[in-house]
């Protein structure tokens, strides 16, 4: 090597200097620092924009509960929903579904523009059209029906809410000339039938749970969506809260250990479907031990003692019937509830007045038959708990101004004379008002579906299929791409409740009148519109008396017009709230309606605070709640006898009758399970709720049904195994999860899964349990009966 000194020194200086220079320069340090900064601000991680925070009130419309909510806004973004502490229904409590409602509002399954279907229903393609086109198209279809002389073939299925928009739909059908306005059956509808039969009233039932001390719940999932969820939660929160005040005991009579059963003071496991026998046996103990309200029964009831009819014939009364047939010992054999337990419960029920007996399984909509609910309700009468604090009330009317009468032309009159296509009010179902699950699809030409999903949620699957196979033209008014929209011919994007004007009367089961009014908290996303506004436009397009029946420019005008009734009644209060811009802080004072100087002031306060209520107005007089011809509570329903002409006395009185035996080979009983985290009425479930599901409810896309470990053992099945669950109506593929809280022989299948529409977070997860429930129609009320179905289970 020949390196001279100069070269060497140069080389060294260069290399050393260079290295040192780079190390001393900030370059490498800046580089690693900036790389780290970059990872902290990755452009693909969203950065929520800051903004001015504010709070606004609204009404939750996820279900019909009508809970009040506070919505936190950041500029025009809605970021959070809390319960409204001042709202009379929920007093701050809110269910997870309500808390996650923003995920539906902003979710990917929203309908965005009016869509017209091209191609067959099985394999639809959707073409965006303008609102003008859509409205013209609907008007054209209606016009064609009318031109063909078949205006009665226009039908509508809408949700069960008491709202002005629903009145608009009814009105629209009326003006066109059709009676076929159908609301999905609400959870407490069967109870109204019971009231009609035993108390002769048409109003909904109301329970004064806040003042009761003892709830005898026959399978009501009080904490899983029964009634207004927020209200039940609030009641649960206060069960033992008040020192010296009312503490509320809940006795849960249910075959399986539900959430309510596990939170109840006492869980009484019962053989499925025998609730009526147990209720009557409790009545037996109350009567035989003299624990019932003798004054009330003597003065205000009919058919308790044996009685003579107008022909002078001797008839057996409720007392003889119950004492004769429902002794705890004999009922023990039916219900498998020990006789001493029956006696204990009856004594507790009598001792802890005011006590309520509640019926209606799951969310209240499931029952074995009207007689079962009558048997349960007769306990309330024996306790004399009608129109008493802590007892049974009626839902009060909200003093809204009624809309002007519908104008009908000749065609409309002709159409309106033709009976309904769902059989409600007919000779077969004289007590029913809406029977969408009994719709004769062949008699419908144009169907409007509004905010419901019958394709998914109608308990009668044959009818559900027929509707979408046989009806030539279906319009879906929907905020979401649900199963029914996917099979419709025209999808009209409807604003969600947080983007629109809407109202809601009568929270379920609440004894005093409540009116909820909601206003848009944000401008409608996308091109969605208020269904009421769309109907007004369609009516205008149709012209004539139909347009005259809708004299308003938009829905708000009608709402305002109706609210004038509240102001004029001069009763009730509005909780006027002032928000401060931090969490929690909110002060509200009830302002009496009387104190508003003008209607305009009242209206502004109502819009801002969303709720009018009148806690003073309850049906606390017996004459308000007992409207049978004799002004008495009827253990023997004369209306039932009159309507159906029953010859057998038993058919007019609460009684238990043994269900028919299971078909050959079906040795299990499949029962539906309500999960508070899943919307089971066909609405979508937001992703954050699906996150809450345990992985023994849903694993990847497999739904789990629950069985007792002993059942699994007898069937030769292991926990987690894939099985076929079959009923006479169909079969589904599920996996099993063994849980000791399920009664032997019972398979518990959760509702709300198996969607084929909506977004990727919900679609194709599990199976729709309704596919295997073979809904029967209750002979008396016409309502769907599907509390259980015989089944079998075997390995795949």
């Amino acid at each position, binding site marked *: *090597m020949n*390196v*001279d*000194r100069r070269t*060497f020194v140069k080389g*060294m200086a260069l290399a050393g200097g260079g290295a040192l220079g780079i190390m001393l320069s900030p370059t490498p340090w800046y580089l690693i620092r900036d790389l780290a900064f970059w990872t902290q601000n990755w452009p693909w991680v969203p950065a929520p924009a800051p903004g001015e925070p504010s709070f606004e009130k609204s009404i939750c419309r996820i279900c019909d509960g009508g809970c009040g909510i506070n919505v936190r806004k950041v500029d025009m973004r809605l970021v959070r929903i809390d319960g409204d502490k001042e709202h009379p229904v929920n007093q701050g409590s809110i269910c997870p579904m309500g808390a996650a409602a923003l995920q539906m509002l902003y979710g990917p399954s929203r309908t965005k523009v009016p869509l017209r279907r091209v191609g067959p229903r099985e394999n639809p393609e959707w073409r965006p059209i303008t609102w003008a086109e859509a409205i013209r198209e609907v008007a054209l279809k209606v016009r064609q029906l009318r031109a063909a002389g078949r205006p009665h073939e226009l039908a509508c299925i809408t949700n069960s809410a008491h709202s002005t928009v629903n009145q608009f739909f009814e009105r629209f059908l009326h003006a066109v000339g059709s009676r076929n306005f159908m609301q999905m059956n609400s959870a407490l509808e069967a109870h109204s039938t019971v009231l009609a039969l035993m108390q002769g009233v048409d109003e909904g039932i109301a329970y004064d749970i806040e003042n009761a001390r003892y709830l005898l719940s026959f399978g009501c999932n009080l904490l899983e969506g029964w009634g207004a969820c927020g209200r039940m939660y609030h009641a649960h929160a206060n069960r033992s809260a008040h020192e010296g005040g009312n503490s509320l005991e809940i006795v849960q009579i249910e075959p399986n250990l539900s959430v309510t059963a596990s939170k109840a003071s006492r869980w009484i496991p019962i053989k499925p479907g025998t609730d009526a026998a147990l209720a009557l046996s409790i009545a037996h103990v109350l009567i035989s031990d003299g624990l019932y309200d003798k004054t009330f029964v003597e003065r205000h009831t009919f058919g308790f003692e044996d009685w003579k009819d107008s022909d002078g014939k001797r008839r057996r009364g409720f007392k003889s019937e119950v004492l004769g047939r429902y002794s705890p010992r004999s009922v023990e054999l039916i219900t498998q509830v020990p006789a001493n337990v029956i006696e204990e419960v009856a004594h507790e029920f009598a001792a802890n007045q005011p006590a309520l007996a509640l019926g209606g399984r799951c969310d209240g909509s499931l029952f074995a038959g009207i007689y079962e609910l009558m048997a349960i309700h007769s306990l309330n009468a024996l306790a004399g708990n009608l129109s008493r604090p802590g007892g049974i009330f009626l839902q009060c009317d909200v003093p809204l101004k009624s809309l002007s009468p519908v104008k009908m032309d000749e065609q409309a009159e002709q159409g309106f004379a033709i009976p309904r296509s769902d059989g409600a009010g007919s000779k077969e179902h004289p007590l029913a008002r809406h029977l969408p699950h009994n719709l004769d699809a062949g008699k419908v030409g144009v169907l409007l579906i509004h905010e419901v999903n019958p394709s998914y949620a109608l308990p009668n699957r044959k009818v559900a299929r027929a509707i979408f196979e046989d009806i030539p033209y279906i319009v879906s008014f929907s905020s979401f791409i649900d199963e029914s929209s996917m099979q419709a011919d025209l999808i009209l994007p409807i604003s969600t409740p947080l983007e629109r004007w809407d109202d809601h009367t009568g929270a379920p089961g609440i004894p005093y009148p409540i009116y909820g009014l909601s206003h848009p908290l944000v401008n409608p996303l996308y091109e969605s519109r208020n269904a009421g506004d769309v109907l007004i436009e369609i009516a205008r397009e149709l012209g004539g008396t139909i347009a005259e029946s809708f004299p308003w420019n938009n829905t708000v005008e009608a709402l305002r017009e109706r609210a004038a009734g509240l102001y004029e009644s001069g009763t009730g209060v509005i909780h006027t709230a002032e928000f401060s811009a931090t969490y929690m802080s909110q002060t509200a004072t009830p302002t009496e309606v009387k104190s508003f100087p003008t209607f305009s002031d009242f209206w502004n306060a109502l819009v801002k605070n969303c709720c009018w209520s009148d806690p003073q107005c309850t049906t606390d007089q017996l004459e308000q709640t007992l409207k049978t011809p004799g002004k008495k509570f009827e253990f023997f329903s004369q209306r039932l006898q009159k309507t159906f002409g029953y010859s057998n006395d038993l058919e007019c009185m609460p009684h238990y009758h043994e269900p028919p035996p299971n078909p050959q080979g079906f040795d299990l009983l499949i029962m539906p399970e309500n999960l508070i985290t899943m919307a089971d009425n066909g609405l979508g479930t937001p992703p954050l709720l699906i996150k809450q599901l345990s992985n023994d409810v849903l694993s990847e896309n497999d739904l789990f049904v629950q069985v007792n470990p002993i059942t699994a053992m007898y069937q030769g099945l292991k926990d987690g195994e894939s099985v076929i669950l079959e009923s006479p109506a169909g079969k589904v593929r599920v996996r099993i999860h063994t849980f000791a809280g399920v009664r032997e022989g019972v398979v518990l299948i959760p509702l709300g899964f198996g969607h084929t529409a909506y977004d990727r977070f919900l679609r194709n997860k599990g199976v729709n349990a309704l596919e295997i429930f073979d809904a029967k129609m209750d002979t008396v009320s016409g309502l769907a009966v599907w509390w259980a179905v015989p089944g079998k289970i075997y390995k795949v």
Partner: protein
Amino acid sequence: MLPTTFEFRWDAGHMIFFGVFYAVVIAIFTSLVYVAVKSIIDVYRDMTARNEANASEHPEHPHEATNEAVIAKS
């Protein structure tokens, strides 16, 4: 690593840990600097010697210190 860093709190743990750490780092670096300096000096010395040898007109004669390299080559 440096006391100037955000949220830095001195406690005994830091003193011990960083004391030992810096001791190690200093030990390593002083050794390296020593090696580097010594090597440069060695080379420099070689070159000086060779230049002197060149100056004394014995250009082909390899210097003692580079013996090994020559052996390795062979």
